[in-house]
């Protein structure tokens, strides 16, 4: 024990230079006059000796080891950061942290206590107060913050503890069930409201007694007692339920931003302190009933806001429920329901008829048809058999399938689609950032007005000054201003999602309301993207024969034959394919040849005169002519083309009426492109054929200088242009690369959804403007009333949430997408 008592680490140099002896128990220096050279342990006092002996006698010596370990650590790490240390562990790292090529880390953290849009400002200020944090984006809807930081500069635990000190305890995003956090937040909120309500009620009752006393007389002692009681209750109310406002205000000051809790906290603080001063002096009015009622009402307002916000997010939330949460896993021949999280590639899954397929994978047993409408928008079921790929979110229509899992959850195609969507709700438009700045100016203006009001009323009527300043500060709470844009955008995105329009960012909505140039890709956008028979000329009896021959081939033309003509049961034999030319074979004992004019004419002995005409007609309208010959006799000509979708012309017409100029850019032959352009009512100058991906990108670039460019496309060849455009729109059936690059995904075919998107964004911007107008108008009027001394703090507190409420209702009620 001696060694422990006089360890070098425990020794502190005294002024004289000799090493001081430390108390064996408390590690404080033992006064040198008390050092007993003979004793094994040194104590600074009898108390320490007693405690030491008690601990020793109880066999609790472990305490000293624990204490030393404690003491070695820097004190800072010990308290706040300790609970976040786990975030730095390799296990957490490998599970949740993503690292990009530049060595920057990214993680999603679930935050508690995110209660209003103002929190977004605060949390997104983090990069300015903590070195090494590159980006913090808060997804308010779910309380999830995306953090990107430089691991060499700052550790995640430091970021988390900073968030904690701002009042938002952080958890790993998937570690805590979000619903639990919501429930806990709700419960805490309800307790706060209940306490605030009870206090407000009591203080109000006391206030009635005091007012009654003013009219009918009351003993000074009683008045004083009542005032003191309400003073105590009021400060309790501010310290507990009202703390949220002060915490918000302090955090705002710390980050140097003008937060809307600032004027609220100031209003409450001024009212309470002035009331307290009057109580102590025993003269003048007290404002405790107003202060407590304000806390109560503001909390209720905030709660309603929170509820509305979650309801508005429900539409987006629905998308997250697209795939089942469990899958039937087959292990050793036994099927077992397991959570989707436990599925790894290689697992064997069973999907029964009528079920949604839970994973991406390949069919290893069974044949069925699946409906992939969710993924491609194609509503006709397609048949799948062994070896075919199926995707999560597709519905298995006919019979049970056994599938070998390749990807589950986030890694599936639908998972990636959802991840895309996840980023959407809070990637905010420039107009939102403008709202932030606006709110900053607003708060500054309110504070200036408050100072002015105070000066004015100190001059006019000293007694009214505090009242009116409090009323002003309370009534101009800029909550409504803060939620005007985000709420409208969130609601619009949710509504659009329900209509099959997935919008990645709010800025897309904002850009789309300013007309510019729409560049349309041809294939799959204007046209259906697959070959169809445009017309058939010649003998009808040749149709079944041609179909029988073509049913053996997978060529797009062949598939068009199969789709167009009914199966008559005829089968072809001795089929010979000539790649790029056509096909020949025996059907019903006759030699049939179907193919390009050159291929068929090679063997043709007789050619009716109308054939050449028909070929020329097809070529002039950019269609592919196909000749059908029987026994060397040309009997029919069919024209194949990729037909323009029926809604295209009217959609383009509408877009132009909205003020957009429409261009077509395609990789196809210029003749084909201009034929399509003619059909949809566009002139030669607005169509560009034979465009390589680079050409498309350049086209976007030239128009981008002039204004908004909307690129609509579906393929990998459009991806770069989609990303470069102001708004990239991927259409139904698009390739994954185009989905990733686009800002909007239209899951319904054709161009009508594009029209709907533009209409919707126009309406959304309208809603945002109306929200701004309402909240600013409201604030101007109420501020004027408060400055004039017409409303008192209590009325102000009742009026305050009304503006937020009206904005929330306006945003929610307005038809942005869908209902026309």
């Amino acid at each position, binding site marked *: 024990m001696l060694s422990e008592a006089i360890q070098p680490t425990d020794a502190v140099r005294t002024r004289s230079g000799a090493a001081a002896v430390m108390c064996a128990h408390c590690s404080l220096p033992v006064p040198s006059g008390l050092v007993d050279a003979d004793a094994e342990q040194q104590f600074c006092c009898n108390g*320490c000796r007693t*405690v030491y002996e008690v601990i020793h*006698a109880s066999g609790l010596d472990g305490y000293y080891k624990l204490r030393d370990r404690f003491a070695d650590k820097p*004190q800072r790490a*010990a308290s706040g950061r*300790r609970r976040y240390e786990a975030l730095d562990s390799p296990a957490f790292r490998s599970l949740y942290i993503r690292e990009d090529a530049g060595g920057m880390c990214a993680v999603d953290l679930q935050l508690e206590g995110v209660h209003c849009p103002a929190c977004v400002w605060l949390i997104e200020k983090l990069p300015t107060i903590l070195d090494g944090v590159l980006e913090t984006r808060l997804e308010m809807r779910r309380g999830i913050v995306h953090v990107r930081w430089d691991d060499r500069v700052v550790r995640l635990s430091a970021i988390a503890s900073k968030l904690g000190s701002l009042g938002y305890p952080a958890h790993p995003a998937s570690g805590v069930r979000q619903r639990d956090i919501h429930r806990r937040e709700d419960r805490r909120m309800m307790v706060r409201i209940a306490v605030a309500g009870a206090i407000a009620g009591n203080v109000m009752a006391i206030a009635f007694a005091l007012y009654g006393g003013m009219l009918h*007389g*009351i*003993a000074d002692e009683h008045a004083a007692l009542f005032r003191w009681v309400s003073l105590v209750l009021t400060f309790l109310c501010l310290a507990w339920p009202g703390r949220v406002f002060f915490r918000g205000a302090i955090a705002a000051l710390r980050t140097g931003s003008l937060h809307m809790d600032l004027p609220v906290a100031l209003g409450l603080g001024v009212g309470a302190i002035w009331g307290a001063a009057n109580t102590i002096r025993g003269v003048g009015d007290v404002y405790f009933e107003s202060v407590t009622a304000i806390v109560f009402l503001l909390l209720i307002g905030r709660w309603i806001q929170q509820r509305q916000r979650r309801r508005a997010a429900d539409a987006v939330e629905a998308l997250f429920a697209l795939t089942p949460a469990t899958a039937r896993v087959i292990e050793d021949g036994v099927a077992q329901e397991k959570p989707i999280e436990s599925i790894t590639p290689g697992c064997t899954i069973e999907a029964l008829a009528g079920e949604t397929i839970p994973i991406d994978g390949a069919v290893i047993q069974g044949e069925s048809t699946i409906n992939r409408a969710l993924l491609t928008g194609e509503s006709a079921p397609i048949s799948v058999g062994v070896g075919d790929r199926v995707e999560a979110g597709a519905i298995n229509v006919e019979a049970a399938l056994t599938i070998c899992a390749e990807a589950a959850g986030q890694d599936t195609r639908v998972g990636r689609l959802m991840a895309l969507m996840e980023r959407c709700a809070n990637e905010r438009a420039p107009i939102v950032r403008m709202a932030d700045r606006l709110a900053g100016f607003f708060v500054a203006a309110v504070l200036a007005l408050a100072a002015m009001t105070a000066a004015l009323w100190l001059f006019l009527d000293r007694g009214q000054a505090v009242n009116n300043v409090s009323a002003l500060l309370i009534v101009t709470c800029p909550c409504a201003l803060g939620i005007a844009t985000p709420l409208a955008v969130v609601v619009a995105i949710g509504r659009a999602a329900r209509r099959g329009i997935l919008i990645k960012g709010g800025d897309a909505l904002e850009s789309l309301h300013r007309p510019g140039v729409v560049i349309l890709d041809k294939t799959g956008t204007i046209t259906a993207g697959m070959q169809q028979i445009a017309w058939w000329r010649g003998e009808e009896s040749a149709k079944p024969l041609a179909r029988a021959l073509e049913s053996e081939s997978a060529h797009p033309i062949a598939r068009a034959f199969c789709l167009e003509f009914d199966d008559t049961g005829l089968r072809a034999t001795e089929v010979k394919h000539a790649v790029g030319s056509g096909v020949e074979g025996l059907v019903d004992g006759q030699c049939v040849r179907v193919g390009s004019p050159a291929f068929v004419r090679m063997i043709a002995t007789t050619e009716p005169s109308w054939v050449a005409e028909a070929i020329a007609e097809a070529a002039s309208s950019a269609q592919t002519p196909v000749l059908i010959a029987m026994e060397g006799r040309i009997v029919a000509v069919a024209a194949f083309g990729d037909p323009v979708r029926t809604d295209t012309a009217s959609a383009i017409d509408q877009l132009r009426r909205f003020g957009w100029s429409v261009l077509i850019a395609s990789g196809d032959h210029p003749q084909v492109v201009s034929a399509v352009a003619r059909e949809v009512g566009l002139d030669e100058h607005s169509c560009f054929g034979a465009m390589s991906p680079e050409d498309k990108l350049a086209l976007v670039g030239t128009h981008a200088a002039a204004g908004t460019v909307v690129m609509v496309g579906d393929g990998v060849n459009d991806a770069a242009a989609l990303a470069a455009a102001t708004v990239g729109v991927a259409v139904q059936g698009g390739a994954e690369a185009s989905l990733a690059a686009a800002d909007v995904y239209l899951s319904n075919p054709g161009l009508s959804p594009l029209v709907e998107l533009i209409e919707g964004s126009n309406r959304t911007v309208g809603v945002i403007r109306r929200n701004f107008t309402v909240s600013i108008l409201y604030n101007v009027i109420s501020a004027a009333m408060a400055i004039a001394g017409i409303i008192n703090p209590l009325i102000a507190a009742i009026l305050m949430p009304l503006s937020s409420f009206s904005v929330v209702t306006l945003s929610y009620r307005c038809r942005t997408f869908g209902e026309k």
Partner: protein
Amino acid sequence: MIALAGAVFFASLMGSMHCAGMCGAFVALAVGGDPANNHQATRLHVAYNGGRLITYTLLGAVAGLLGAALDLGGQLLGLQRAAAALAGAMMIGFGAIALLRASGVRIARAPLPPGVRAIVSRGNRFAARRTPFVRAGVIGLLTTLLPCGWLYAFAIVAAGTADPLFGAGAMIAFWAGTLPALIAVGVGAQKLLGPLRSRAPQIAGILLIAVGLFTVFSRASIASMRMDPAIAQPAAAIDRVERIDQATLPCCDVE
């Protein structure tokens, strides 16, 4: 009284690193449990410190009573404010001894009171078998029994007030001053005062002398504060009693 309480609180706060060192072990015992369970830790802190508060207050009240008795005895002997003077002198003496010891002068320590260790040990064993909340409370209650010079110096201050209520008040102020350190020790912030640690004995000595001086010189104001000015003048008091039937009851004070 408020001034004295303030002085005691301040001294207690400044010197409480001693408490953290000495009682840290017991705090750890009392509130140690599941560190992740914040809610429980708060309850246990309340129990432990509540326990301390009870016995400290009792000690203060008893000391105040003793002081009152001393004052009475002093008055019989014709001495004014005997308790305050004695307490102040003792405090100054303690402080001086502490300073002398710190600078290396050998002054023998008072012998350890017999039996204290056994009582505290038994108490702790009793507590160990109880629920965490009760355990924390019992450990808190037992703290007062520890032969801590610092604690008993303030018990003497309490005696110096010569009034059980004020004595209790002084000890409550002392208790309040120790709170931050003892709560901090539970959350592992022992090095709170960093560089001051090595000067702890000297600081304690100076604080003791300061409070001693305060005890001696602030007594007068305490005495005057206790006196209701209306009753202090016999004529006015008699007048009040005689007119009591004419006075309106406060609650019926209609204008």
